[in-house]
């Protein structure tokens, strides 16, 4: 049996457990051992998105509109994919500027404007208070239903009860007390609430487990699984309307998806858990998939429960919104009923707590603080304002919850409460343009944001809030049917003649159109002012690593004492001193007294204050104790430019370093080439000296012999002298050829480029070596054409090549029987001159190297007298003239040396 006592004890016990969790997490946070710095807990805390409206309302919506409940979860699932950049940017900006709420965020983006923060706060409170009322209603209603266990009966309308007998009032007061304990437990007004986050994450688990348990019970206990349940539903004729009708209205699906995608980021409680309470950017990565997974899980059993409810309560007056609770009740499942009740309470309390904390921060910082600051002069300078701040917040919490209760009492069962979930979503969706566009477009200005928010808000009130009042009977129904003053075009739900959309889609279309239109038009109307441009840059470039940019944008005189005093007044003495001390330590200073009163310190103090009283108020307070020089637009732009210049410099540096690497690589390659050349040169020098030493050795040896032995025989003396003379000639030939080769290789040789007749040169070369051949007894055979063979070249150099080849041939042929054949052939585009001999030929192994320096063919016994440079020089010459030279040989038939030169081109 579930008695009232058991239910009350279970409820209070559950709240007590929540408090214990929160207390423990707060303690851990104080000890710097945070339990919430965990990606899973972060993702679970985001599931505060699922309120009682999800827990009870999804089934209600499913029973009424079939799968029309789904877009509310598809939207967040889709937008979660963008969190890696969009939410990351919001988190980073908020951390660096210590932003405490969505109102603070928007105010801060547009130059820390009190006006904008106030407007956002008002819209949020108006939009959210009814939503809180809905949660209160859910708790008290489920409690009332539970009291009749196991009889299922719908409670009387709440407003029929006297005020003091209404459980909702006590629920509201209990939650207020609870929220105060959670949200303002600390004496300091710090912006983060680790205990609350831990409790919310826990609640997310409880509501998921409760919903899944009911779903499993309904699907597998009451029925034989999904197929069975769906078959029964189909037979009863309730399945098709749910699925088919739910699919109708594409534009509504689209609108609801967009709406919920925006809401999941713009709802104050979502901003609170996703941005303000975020304890590490890396947690976003898991939330991107874990949060959608949570939404998926909590939606699996919505349709089965809706179907089962309709099957169970045929013909009974049971509200589909209560199926999650009443189904276990009807089947006498006491513990499951209690679990479902606690799940619903988790969903409702989680929302109320976070939303109230978020709203109270906004009310305190963006509505009350500005008023307080106006009367700043009247506040005694020594008053400790941190306690005042806490009192304001606590007051705001109580006020918001009582407003929620009041709205609940007034609206009750009226239409205005039932549909409030989407109405709230539509209200906070108005923040999206100023928020999201402002994160990516520098041009957005304060007036643009104000105009956009105001026009979107007005349209929302006119097309959604007023009609809901009218439907509740608080306003004449004629307003909807005929329009104000019977002006058709102004009918709230068919504005400017737009019909055919449901009210939410209709409102979303007009409000966002006006909102975005006004935002952009007013932003374009005037260029941003200095403070707007500064903040715009900090927000838009948040991901570009500019967190210290804000520091550079302050110039003036300040006193650390004054700043510390200011911080002490809002944060309390101990905490302020502690934080200043930590800041000094970060700057490698031992004491607060050593802190310079520079831009960095002022910036630190301002963000510190911003965490407590909001950025706009913090700016005002810091200005009150410092003398700030107003920076001109030019100066601000310069500072911003500097930052971008630094980026540009670092890019340039990177480029330079790439260039350097490339240059280094090229130098290395060049160096390797040089080393190779150097080695070749060394080899050459070594060969040259060797070639010089050999004749020198002979000359010296024979000279010494001749010098030492005066009695040497005459013929021997002649022979030795002959050797000396020949070796001297060889020496000078070698020196000349080395010089010649060096000249050709270095490109310093003079070349004539004239038309020369190869035939003439060949004949001249043969005739000038005639004596040489005759001495050796060599026969020269000519195979020459009878016409001139004109090439372009250097006559003397060609002669040098021919003489070299002829004398080489003569050297190798045997004496007396030697034969040298000189051949000149005209080929298609070139002339070929070949000199063949009947000498020993060239060994196959020697052929490839025959044109290298100091390579001489032939065995030692018949080593020819030569320098080893003739062929290399010939090769250089021929190649310089555009031809080529090669050797062929068989050791039986001697060697053939051939060079080819291109024919002179015919004059064009």
């Amino acid at each position, binding site marked *: 049996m579930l008695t009232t006592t058991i239910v009350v004890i279970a409820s209070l016990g559950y709240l007590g457990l929540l408090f214990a969790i929160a207390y423990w997490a707060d303690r851990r946070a104080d000890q710097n051992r945070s339990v919430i710095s965990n990606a899973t807990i972060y993702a679970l805390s985001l599931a505060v998105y699922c309120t009682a409206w999800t827990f009870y309302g999804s089934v209600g919506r499913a029973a009424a509109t079939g799968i029309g409940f789904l877009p509310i979860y598809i939207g967040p699932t889709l937008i979660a994919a963008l969190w890696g950049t969009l939410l990351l940017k919001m988190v980073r900006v908020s951390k660096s500027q210590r932003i405490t709420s969505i109102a603070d965020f928007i105010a801060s983006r547009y130059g820390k404007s009190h006006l904008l923060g106030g407007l956002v706060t008002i819209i949020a409170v108006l939009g959210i208070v009814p939503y809180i009322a809905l949660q209160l209603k859910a708790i008290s209603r489920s409690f009332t239903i539970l009291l009749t266990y196991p009889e299922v009966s719908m409670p009387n309308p709440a407003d029929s009860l006297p005020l003091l007998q209404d459980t909702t009032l006590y629920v509201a007061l209990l939650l207020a007390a609870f929220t105060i304990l959670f949200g303002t437990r600390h004496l300091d007004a710090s912006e983060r609430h680790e205990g609350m986050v831990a409790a919310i994450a826990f609640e997310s688990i409880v509501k998921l487990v409760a919903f899944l348990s009911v779903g499993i019970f309904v699907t597998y206990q009451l029925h034989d699984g999904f197929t069975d349940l769906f078959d029964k539903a189909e037979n009863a004729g309730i399945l098709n309307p749910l699925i088919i009708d739910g699919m109708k209205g594409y534009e509504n699906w689209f609108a609801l998806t967009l709406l919920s995608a925006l809401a999941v980021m713009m709802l104050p409680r979502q901003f609170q858990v996703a941005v303000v309470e975020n304890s590490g950017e890396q947690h976003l990565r898991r939330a991107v998939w874990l949060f959608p997974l949570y939404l998926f899980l909590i939606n699996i059993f919505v349709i089965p429960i809706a179907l089962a409810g309709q099957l169970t309560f045929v013909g009974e007056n049971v509200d589909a919104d209560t199926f999650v609770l009443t189904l276990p009740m009807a089947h006498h499942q006491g513990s499951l009923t209690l679990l479902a009740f606690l799940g619903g309470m988790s969903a409702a309390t989680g929302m109320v707590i976070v939303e109230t904390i978020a709203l109270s921060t906004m009310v305190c910082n963006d509505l009350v603080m500005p008023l307080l600051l106006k009367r700043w002069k009247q506040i005694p300078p020594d008053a400790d304002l941190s306690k005042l701040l806490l009192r304001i917040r606590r007051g705001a919490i109580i006020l918001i919850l009582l407003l929620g209760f009041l709205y609940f009492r007034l609206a009750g069962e009226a239409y205005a409460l039932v549909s409030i979930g989407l109405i709230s979503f539509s209200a906070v969706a108005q923040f999206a343009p100023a928020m999201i566009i402002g994160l990516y477009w520098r041009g957005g200005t304060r007036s643009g944001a104000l105009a956009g928010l105001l026009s979107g808000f007005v349209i929302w009130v006119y097309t959604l809030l007023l009609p809901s009042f009218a439907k509740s009977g608080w306003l004449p129904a004629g307003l909807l049917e005929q329009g104000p003053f019977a002006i058709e075009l102004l009918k709230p739900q068919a504005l400017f003649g737009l019909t055919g959309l449901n009210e939410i889609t209709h409102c979303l279309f007009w409000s966002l159109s006006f909102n975005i239109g006004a935002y952009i038009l007013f932003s374009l109307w005037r260029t941003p002012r200095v403070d707007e441009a500064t903040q715009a840059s900090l927000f838009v470039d948040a991901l570009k690593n500019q967190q210290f940019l804000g520091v550079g944008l302050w110039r003036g005189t300040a006193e650390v004492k004054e700043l510390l005093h200011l911080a002490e007044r809002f944060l309390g003495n101990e905490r302020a001193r502690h934080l200043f001390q930590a800041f000094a330590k970060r700057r490698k200073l031992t004491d607060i007294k050593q802190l310079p009163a520079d831009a960095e310190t002022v910036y630190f103090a301002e963000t510190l204050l911003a965490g407590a009283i909001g950025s706009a108020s913090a700016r005002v307070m810091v200005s009150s104790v410092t003398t700030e020089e107003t920076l001109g637009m030019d100066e601000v732009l310069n500072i911003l430019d500097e930052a971008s210049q630094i980026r540009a410099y670092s890019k340039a540096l990177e480029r330079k370093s790439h260039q350097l690497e490339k240059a280094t690589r090229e130098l290395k390659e060049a160096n390797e080439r040089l080393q190779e050349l150097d080695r070749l040169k060394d080899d050459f020098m*070594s060969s040259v*000296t*060797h*070639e010089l*030493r*050999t*004749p*020198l*050795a*002979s*000359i*010296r*040896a*024979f000279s*010494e*012999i001749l010098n*030492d*032995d005066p009695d040497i025989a005459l013929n021997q003396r002649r022979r030795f002298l002959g*050797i000396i003379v020949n*070796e001297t000639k060889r020496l000078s030939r070698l020196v000349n050829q080395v010089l010649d080769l060096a000249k050709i290789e270095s490109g310093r040789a003079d070349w004539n480029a004239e038309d020369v007749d190869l035939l003439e040169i060949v004949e001249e070369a043969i005739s000038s070596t005639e004596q040489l051949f005759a001495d050796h007894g060599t026969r020269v055979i000519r195979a020459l054409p009878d016409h001139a063979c004109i090439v372009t070249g250097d006559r003397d150099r060609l002669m040098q090549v021919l003489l070299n080849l002829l004398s080489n041939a003569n050297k190798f042929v045997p004496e007396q029987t030697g034969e040298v054949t000189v051949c000149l052939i005209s080929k298609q585009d070139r002339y070929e001159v070949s000199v063949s001999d009947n000498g020993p030929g060239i060994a196959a192994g020697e052929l490839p190297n025959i044109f290298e320096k100091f390579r001489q063919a032939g*065995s*030692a*016994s018949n*080593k020819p007298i030569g320098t080893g440079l003739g062929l290399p020089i010939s090769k250089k010459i021929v190649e310089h003239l555009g031809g080529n030279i090669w050797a062929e040989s068989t050791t039986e038939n001697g060697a053939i040396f051939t060079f080819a030169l291109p024919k002179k081109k015919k004059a064009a």
Partner: protein
Amino acid sequence: MTKTILIVDDEPNIVLSVEYLMKREGYQVMTASDGQVAMEVIADTRPDLLILDVMMPRKNGFEVCREIRADPALSGLPILMLSAKGREAEIKKGISLGADAYITKPFSTHDLVDKVNQLLQSRE
């Protein structure tokens, strides 16, 4: 007993001058024009001293030197390297391969003769 000296060089004029000098000192002289011929001559006649050029076709002086030092039957055969290769590293290489002396071309005839006499006397 007259000592026999083998002169190995591919430059005929060098061979001629060294042969003259050695004969003038009273030694018997044999010649070879490259390393391969030299190895054959050594195997046949066992000279008492080798005057060895380095840069030669077919088998250079370093190889000849290495082969001789690797052959126990030829142990104690003095080798005098007479080479146009005059760099420090080359001289060291020759000595490390087992040459007893290394003289660079162009050479002093007196130094060559003194070195040969000294090497032959120290063997006795």
